[in-house]
């Protein structure tokens, strides 16, 4: 059987807030309905659902039932963090391409601020098993610590400055000003950045993303079907992942790089594209340090040059590639990376309003930090 092509046909999301007062199930159902409505598909047509969580969400079948989809041919609840934000979409495409499913909903829903906060070292969901048992007793248990450890090594190897990290935070905040959905839109100056309080050195306040409540969903169906629906289909050029070194944050060989040093070869081989082809890049930015490493690992600039690339305006409008036009996890909100897919689809449809990147044809989305993650490239249907 010939492999059929797939496409994103719909996108949906809830409001982003600090205190939703709702269950992850309710928010996921709203986002899924919104995505199906956006596509012009009925909930009863859904026959696949894929999501990821760290035990802080609702199960896929539960969400499907909540919208009236009760007979699924595929349900995948993946356990893990932002490193899976490309996996879930890549597998939805694979399921449609293989003919396993016709309409797949992908979602991430969480009360990241009012519920299980990743930045807190006393959250009940923390389980100190595996590698984590050797970090537990020293309280080395939260992501800002782990990524700051990478960032400090990056400073040591490349002479990276505080201002280099600041350029990333400033660029995304500047972009967020044109995004009505963003949680943080007030401009930040370099003085503001440098005078903000330390969180976990070398990270200050604006190096850290904003824990957020909300949900985002996508609908993936066949390209042929998507062409008859409400919006221009958004195709996928390909994706590449890397789940390296057993997921170890401490014994990853070189902390001045990340999973992206391994995923890059798969991404570019699977798509036949190169960095110069990318118009919009939604870089996973749980912290500025993640962008610092992964942007160079994926080949947009030489290693150690990310700060200069941003400082020269090459990561913004009128430059080489617009990075995080929505403001990213740092300024739009931390929807664990699925909001990056929403933005990429908006941009390729030409629906991004004031922040539209002119003539955008290819949009990169990356997911994850440290030892594991992936990247996917969307393309317009022409």
């Amino acid at each position, binding site marked *: 059987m010939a492999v059929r092509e797939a496409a994103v046909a719909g996108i949906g999301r809830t409001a982003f807030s600090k205190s939703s007062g709702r269950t992850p199930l309710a928010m996921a159902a709203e986002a899924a309905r919104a995505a199906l409505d956006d596509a012009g598909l009925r909930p009863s047509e859904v026959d696949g659902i894929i999501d990821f969580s760290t035990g802080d969400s609702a199960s896929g079948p539960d969400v499907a039932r909540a919208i009236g989809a009760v007979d699924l041919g595929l349900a995948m609840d993946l356990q893990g963090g932002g490193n899976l934000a490309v996996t879930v979409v890549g597998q939805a495409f694979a399921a449609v391409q293989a003919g396993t499913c016709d309409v797949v909903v992908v979602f991430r829903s969480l009360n990241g601020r009012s519920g299980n906060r990743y930045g807190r*070292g*006393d959250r009940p969901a*923390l389980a100190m098993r595996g590698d*984590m*048992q*050797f970090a537990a*007793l020293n309280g080395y248990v939260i992501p800002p610590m782990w990524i700051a450890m990478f960032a*400090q090594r990056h400073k040591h190897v490349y002479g990276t400055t505080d201002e280099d990290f600041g350029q990333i935070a400033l660029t995304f905040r500047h972009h967020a000003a044109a995004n009505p959905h963003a949680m943080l839109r007030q401009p930040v100056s370099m003085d503001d950045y440098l005078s903000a309080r*330390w969180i*976990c050195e070398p990270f200050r306040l604006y190096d850290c993303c904003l824990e957020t409540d909300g949900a985002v969903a996508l609908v993936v169906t066949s390209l042929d079907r998507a062409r008859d629906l409400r919006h221009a289909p958004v195709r996928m050029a390909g994706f590449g992942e890397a789940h390296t070194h057993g997921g170890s944050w401490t014994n990853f060989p070189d902390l001045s790089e990340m999973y992206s040093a391994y995923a890059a070869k798969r991404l570019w081989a699977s798509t036949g594209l190169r960095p110069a082809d990318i118009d919009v890049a939604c870089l996973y930015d749980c912290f500025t340090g993640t962008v610092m490493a992964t942007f160079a690992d994926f080949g947009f600039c030489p290693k150690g040059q990310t700060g200069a690339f941003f400082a020269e305006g090459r990561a913004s409008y009128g430059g080489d590639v617009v990075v995080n036009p929505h403001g990213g996890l740092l300024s739009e909100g931390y929807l664990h990376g699925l909001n990056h897919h929403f933005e990429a689809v908006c941009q390729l449809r030409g629906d991004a309003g004031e922040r539209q990147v002119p003539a955008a044809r290819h949009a990169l989305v990356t997911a994850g930090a440290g030892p594991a993650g992936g990247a996917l490239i969307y393309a317009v249907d022409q």
Partner: protein
Amino acid sequence: MPPPAPPPPLIDADSAEFWQATREGRIALCRCTRCGAWLARPLERCQHCAAPTVFEPVAGTGAIYSYIVVHHPAVPAFAHLVPYVIALVEFDEGPRLPGILLGEGGTGVAIGQRVRAELTAFPGAAERAVTYRRVEPPATGLPAARP
């Protein structure tokens, strides 16, 4: 009032001997009986050659591979210590383990500095933690953070 306890490690059959050694005041890491590789993550069999492993004492010395200075008191057990340093130390045998660099507030700490590992019983902790002290103490008389 004493600070809350740090989260307890979930000990498993592969790691039990590491923790037993710490209770006896020793740091012992997992090592292959055939190829001699030191394994950062204890495994029943070697990840390189699949031979059985044992736990062997290490010298307890190493160098700072990277470090952070914790200012935001996100981990209640150590909120009273801020600012404090967590170092990712590369043992001379190879594996890296993270731990608090005792008595340091961040000033003068640098990648590459030599440290000695020790075992520290933080208040209420289920087990003793691997912590570090710089082999050459800081020149300036910084106030020492006490566990």
